[in-house]
């Protein structure tokens, strides 16, 4: 079989302009496909980090937009297996202006003294952590955001609230670095709460819980949610990873959307390459007659023609995968807006899926014309002119 590879390879470069166009169009579509599959993987298959696995998130059963009483904290802390529980409050607001996406880093209110226990992956020097805890209006930011805005310790940072009708003035006391998030601004929830009046006061969006052991995740979640079953505000407790996904589903059925686009991309490229592959098979019909005269069987000829299409598609696919992994690297460096893109990369399985799809595109798009050509009687094939 592989004895014919050199002929297959030579043939695939025969009509250079057309091969190049086919390769480019397959590369572009597979780049898009690779990106989508990488996103899908980052969202739904990325393994939880050890810290994520040890964290639970409690929110309102109905949705994130419904607040919970901050007082739930006392009961949550009592649940066996809970090492620490902390208010984790998302604060929208505006930094400078919203036209520059670089200004749209996330802001969270936490309980500063618990932050190192619940979120130990945010690395901070001891002195910075101490300064952060001590000062009610202190904040810390991720190193990326600090670098982007040239922020230095001691700087004043003003965030104007939108949902919350308050303006918060912070002093930068620390710059953290983490394995994933290096962008958020973290401040004292207490400072926010004390600025609030009326309904908004003492209500929060989420509790972050640090467990003693990952094995307790299900029991703890159930205990907490059962505890508030008869309260006006029921809760939903899940692992941080599951929470990330339900936050994403806020934006719609992400899974379905991703899969639909993937299918559409694959189908389109199949139509495009089906056309060019049929063209290149037509050019080979006479040669099919010659090869068969030399003793090539129908099967060998079929393999030659299909192999040529697969090679072209694989070259395009490999280029597409390279492009996609470049694109992922670029997207990882962007400020993250709705979703955590730090896990976005073309891993070996993602690349393998793309190359498999590429090979399938080559196979499927050429099979029918190649089958027809390989079955053509020798005499007919030799007389064929295109």
């Amino acid at each position, binding site marked *: 079989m592989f*004895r*014919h590879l*050199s*002929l297959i390879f*030579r*043939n695939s*470069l*025969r009509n250079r302009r057309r091969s190049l166009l086919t390769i480019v169009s397959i590369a572009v579509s597979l780049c898009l496909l690779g990106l989508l599959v990488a996103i899908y993987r980052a969202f739904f298959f990325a393994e939880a980090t050890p810290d994520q696995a040890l964290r639970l998130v409690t929110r309102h059963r109905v949705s994130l937009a419904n607040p919970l009483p901050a007082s739930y904290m006392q009961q949550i802390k009592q649940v066996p297996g809970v090492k620490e529980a902390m208010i984790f409050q998302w604060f929208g607001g505006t930094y400078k202006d919203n036209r520059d996406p670089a200004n749209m880093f996330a802001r969270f209110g936490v309980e500063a003294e618990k932050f190192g226990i619940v979120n130990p992956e945010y690395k901070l020097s001891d002195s910075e952590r101490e300064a952060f805890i001590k000062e009610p209006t202190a904040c810390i930011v991720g190193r990326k955001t600090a670098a982007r805005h040239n922020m230095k310790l001691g700087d004043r940072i003003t965030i104007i609230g939108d949902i919350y009708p308050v303006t918060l003035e912070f002093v930068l006391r620390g710059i953290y670095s983490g394995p994933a998030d290096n962008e958020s601004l973290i401040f004292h929830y207490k400072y926010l709460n004390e600025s609030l009046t009326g309904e908004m006061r003492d209500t929060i969006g989420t509790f972050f819980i640090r467990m003693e052991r990952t094995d307790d995740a299900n029991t703890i979640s159930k205990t907490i949610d059962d505890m508030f079953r008869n309260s006006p505000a029921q809760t939903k407790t899940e692992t941080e990873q599951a929470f990330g996904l339900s936050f994403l589903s806020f934006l719609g059925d992400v899974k379905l959307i991703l899969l639909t686009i993937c299918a559409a991309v694959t189908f389109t490229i199949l139509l495009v390459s089906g056309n060019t592959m049929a063209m290149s098979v037509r050019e080979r019909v*006479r*040669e099919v007659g*010659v*090869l*068969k*005269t*030399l*003793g*090539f*069987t*129908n*099967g*060998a000829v079929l393999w030659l023609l299909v192999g040529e299409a697969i090679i072209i598609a694989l070259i395009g696919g490999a280029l597409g995968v390279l492009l996609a992994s470049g694109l992922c690297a670029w997207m990882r460096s962007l400020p993250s807006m709705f979703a955590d893109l730090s896990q976005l990369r073309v891993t070996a399985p993602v690349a393998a899926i793309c190359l498999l799809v590429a090979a399938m595109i080559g196979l499927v798009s050429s099979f029918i014309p190649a089958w027809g050509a390989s079955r053509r*009687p*020798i*005499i007919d094939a*030799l007389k064929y002119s295109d």
Partner: protein
Amino acid sequence: MSNVVIQANNLTKEYVRAEFRVTALDDANLEVHQGEFIALMGPSGSGKSTLLHLMAAMDRPSSGNISVFGQNLQALSDAEIARWRNTHIGFVFQSFNLIPVLTAMENVELPLKLTKLNKTQRREQAKRALELVGLGDRLGHTPRQLSGGQEQRVAIARAIVTDPDVILADEPTGNLDAASARDVLTLLGRLNKEFNKTLIMVTHDPGAAKTASKIRYLEKGKLLPEGQKPAEY
């Protein structure tokens, strides 16, 4: 009496097109002996190529029987015929039909890729065939870099590289200038005399036909009896 290589009995080929049928070959009987060099002549459309194709098992007869080396060709499946053709038949076309993306060497090596030979043996054998046709110094040339006469000699090398028993040539000099045609005919003559190959060649050129040991004529699908020719010849 020498060995019979090809035995055709009542060989008939009809082509059926939408509303009419053409009898391309009509009840041909032919016996070809080992080492013979037969020229097939006749007007255009008289069935010469059809007969040649049937002998190469490139096509199947509508009726009648053909056996080559005692092998009844009708009894073989398509895949068996392909293999059989690879080992027993060398075919030379009027229009050379080399694979344009392959070098002379690779073109000649092509039929050997269907055999059990390894790469070194294939190269070795392909090189020998090309040296035999006088192109030992053109191994790396692609068809486009060769003259018509050289291309046809590469095609002949490709036809003989598997050391087949029978060489069939359909107007092998039809596309060549006089000098190249002479070279090709000399070469075919040598294959017949020095290597004892059985050769059947279709030609329009009476001069070319003279290199053969015997001339047979066709007219309107009929293979004329030995010694008989159509009126215009």
